[in-house]
């Protein structure tokens, strides 16, 4: 039926050219949106490979201006801060996301058990913290971390944001969709709660865990603010804090200075190379993880 009507409307379009015009406009508009979205990234790549002099003279528009140069990459890859930043981020992302998932699972599982006496209490206990504004918490949270002597420790980055209440609630809602009979049958067979969790619940929750894990991972990878506040040793900085120094603060400073000397010529290209080096891992894994985010959005919007 659907196919038939599809064919009908197609043949109708072929006859009536007037119907094609809205379609052409539609495709054009979407294409323009895509070009606007992708252009900055293409430019950054082109600029990073261009002759620094050409970049300085505003001659790069879309494609790299010859002579093709990898000089900027040589310079940035020699910069120890980038490598330290990468290593630190890898550490924070790996262990941080693991802690995030562990705490979220430990919270969500009991909260999903319908006969658990503390279910209602835990739901309120966790949900209520979603209403606390980040701005209001900024100073008190900093003082707590300070009084625990966690300032300037890698541990602070790992545990201060060990769980996001919103993701706990999403995971709980997902666990709740697992049929209660499964639990009861396992219980009758003498399974412990830990066995039910690890052998029944977790194996069927792969997609939900992947989605939430990726959200945590993105947060860990992208976050710079609290790392900047908690840490004051460059050796512990994650990549984003390093990037802020190299491509945001450096540029702001430059812009204040109205007569930039030729010394800045190389700096521009190096900045673009830095952006490429820092964004490459995301560009590589993005196509593979995209579907989990598409899933995650709808998971979050229908949460109960």
């Amino acid at each position, binding site marked *: 039926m659907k196919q038939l009507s599809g064919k009908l409307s197609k043949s109708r379009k072929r006859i009536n050219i007037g119907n094609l015009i809205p379609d052409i406009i539609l495709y054009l508009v*979407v294409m323009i949106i895509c070009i606007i979205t992708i252009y900055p990234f293409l*430019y950054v790549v082109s600029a990073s490979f261009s002759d620094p002099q050409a*970049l300085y003279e505003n001659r790069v528009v879309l494609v790299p201006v010859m002579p093709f140069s990898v000089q900027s990459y040589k310079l940035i890859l020699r910069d120890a801060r980038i490598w330290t930043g990468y290593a630190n981020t890898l550490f924070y992302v790996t262990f941080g996301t693991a802690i995030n998932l562990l705490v979220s699972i430990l*919270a969500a599982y009991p909260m999903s058990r319908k006969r658990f006496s503390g279910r209602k209490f835990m739901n309120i206990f966790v949900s209520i913290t979603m209403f606390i*504004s980040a*701005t209001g918490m900024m100073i008190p949270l900093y003082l707590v971390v*300070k009084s625990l002597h966690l300032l300037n420790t890698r541990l602070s980055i790992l545990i201060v944001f060990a769980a996001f209440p919103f993701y706990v609630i999403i995971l709980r809602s997902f666990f709740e969709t697992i049929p209660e009979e499964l639990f009861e049958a396992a219980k009758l067979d003498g399974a412990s709660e830990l066995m039910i*969790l690890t052998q029944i619940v977790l194996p069927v929750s792969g997609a939900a865990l992947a989605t939430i894990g990726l959200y945590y991972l993105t947060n860990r990878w992208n976050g710079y603010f609290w790392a900047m506040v908690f840490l004051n040793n460059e050796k512990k900085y994650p990549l984003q804090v390093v990037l802020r120094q190299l491509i945001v603060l450096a540029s702001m400073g430059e*812009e204040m200075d109205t007569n930039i000397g030729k010394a800045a010529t190389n700096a521009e290209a190096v900045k673009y190379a830095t952006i490429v080096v820092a964004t490459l891992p995301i560009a590589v894994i993005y196509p593979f993880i995209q579907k989990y985010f598409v899933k995650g959005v709808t998971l979050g919007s229908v949460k109960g």
Partner: protein
Amino acid sequence: MKVRRKKFRLVDERALWLMLIPVIAYFIIFKYIPVSGIIIAFKRYSPFKGIAASPWVGFLYFKQFFHSVYFGRVLRNTLMIGFLSIIFEFPMPIILALLLNGIKNKIFKKISQTITLLPYFVSFVVIAGIAINFLSPSTGVINGIIKRLGGNPIYFMQKPKYFWFIYIFLRIFKGTGYTAIIYLAALTAIDPNLYEAADCDGAGRFNKLIYITLPGILPTIMIMFLVRIGRLISVSFEEVLLLQNDVILSTAEVISTFVYRRGLIGADYSYATAVGLFETVIALFLVIFSNKLAGRFRSEATLW
């Protein structure tokens, strides 16, 4: 039957509470204790005396803030960014979703969605870095084009009047593709029979949009709108901070970044906490208000 089941203890209370110990500890230490720390807004907090021994000062810091030149400025900037975001940023994902929904070619649709979702995965540090370099009066590509067209370079990041629009534009750039997924999900939930019936009645594209598509996603739009209202004054300090410099603070300073500057840079803890509490109270009021309204549209949607 019920009595016999109960003997088997369908839930092992002790094991579940055991799992919750680290969860409860985390929430108490890093969520609930900071909330109680808000009390320093009413004290003259000194790090040497500790919270308990610091003297009470009542609403002194609130009065100081309300009577200062900053109050009007940061409140105006915060609200302006909030309103401009509702006017310009809020409709974009709806428009994009409608455009993508109208595209019949599956491959074209998939590629467009992949491209428009890409900026969401790039950290705001990188996006701010690209923006600042693009807008640079000397080497930026935007001013390069302006110069080539015979204009004078515009100092985008040094003139206060541009800041709100630059920030909103970057928000649109980063978030539109992501939020559009929510609307696309809502669009697929519309009954296709409605469109077929409309086709039989000879309804055109525009009529279908007005009478079927828009009413179909209206509940989602309303929910998203109310969520947005709830977050009206919660302007992200992580994002705004990256685009700020001393010259444009008159428009770029929002409540949350002001708390950061006074509290974490200036170590004026009590004053900053008072400002943060002021934001929290308004934000809480807005969230409760919008949740109440949202409850009318969809009962599960409360508690966002």
